[in-house]
């Protein structure tokens, strides 16, 4: 049985890589290295950054003023990555991140975006009906709390610094990080004490 035809996209990619290699612009090794960095990234990185910010005021200040430096301080390779901005939730303001134009996402600290983040439904609805979208995640905020949607339209990538929930006093950074989910870092959910 003959092998199925290769997708056109694969052939295009191979031709592009060959052309870039021939001109000395990009090597296979550089691509592999970048793939390894991308594959290594996961929401656990963002969770560790949040947990540290909850326990270390100096780190919190760095995280809010220069997210890129704060990620590097946690061992994340940020060279070549877009700058990272961090949005501080307060008792009166909650942030929700969306990219209405495509699917910009802070991959360096959260890894690959979930499928729903890239869906037309989330992209259209998060910006227009954030309270309705949050309610579907079981996230109900009082009317007195401002919901600030952050539409990731250009060169920055955004991550939320949620509020530390009550009942976590005295917890270690590791235990705190365990309740910071990917969804909480995008702003569709809140960290919860199990």
């Amino acid at each position, binding site marked *: 049985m003959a092998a199925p035809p290769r997708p056109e996209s694969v052939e295009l990619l191979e031709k592009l890589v060959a052309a870039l290699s021939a001109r000395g612009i990009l090597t296979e090794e550089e691509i592999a290295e970048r793939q390894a960095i991308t594959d290594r990234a996961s929401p656990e990185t963002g969770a560790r950054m949040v947990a540290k910010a909850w326990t270390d005021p100096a780190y919190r200040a760095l995280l809010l003023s220069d997210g890129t430096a704060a990620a590097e301080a946690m061992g994340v390779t940020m060279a070549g990555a877009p*700058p990272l*901005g961090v949005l501080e939730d307060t008792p009166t303001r909650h942030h929700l991140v969306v990219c209405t134009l495509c699917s910009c996402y802070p991959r360096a600290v959260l890894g690959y975006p979930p499928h729903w983040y890239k869906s037309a439904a989330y992209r259209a609805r998060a910006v227009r009906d954030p309270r309705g979208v949050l309610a579907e995640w079981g996230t109900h905020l009082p009317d007195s709390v401002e*919901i600030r*949607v952050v*539409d*990731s*339209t*250009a060169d920055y990538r955004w991550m939320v610094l949620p509020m530390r929930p009550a009942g976590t006093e005295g917890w270690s950074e590791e235990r705190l990080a365990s309740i910071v989910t990917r969804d909480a870092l995008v702003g569709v959910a809140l960290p919860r004490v199990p």
Partner: protein
Amino acid sequence: MSAAIAPGARVRVRDDWPEERGPCHIRTPHYVRGRTGTVERVLGAFPNPEDLAFGRPAPRRTLYHVRFDQKPLWDEGNPRDTVLVEIFEHWLEPLAEGRH
């Protein structure tokens, strides 16, 4: 490049639709074109994506974080809610004081 618009300034997003004039790559969402917002802060200067996307020399342009009230944008929603959008300088027009 120095930032020309200070945080707190009221700005209007250009009501311009280059999509209707030919191929282009625009990072200014439709829903804020022609709308009025407030500069939250200056994010820095980045190569203009409208040139970058076509492989043209891309001069750096100042990028602003601009805040809009949700309710006037959609004519619905909670009056407390807001949207923050990254918008390049050439899409913003300063609003004179007292104008709306």
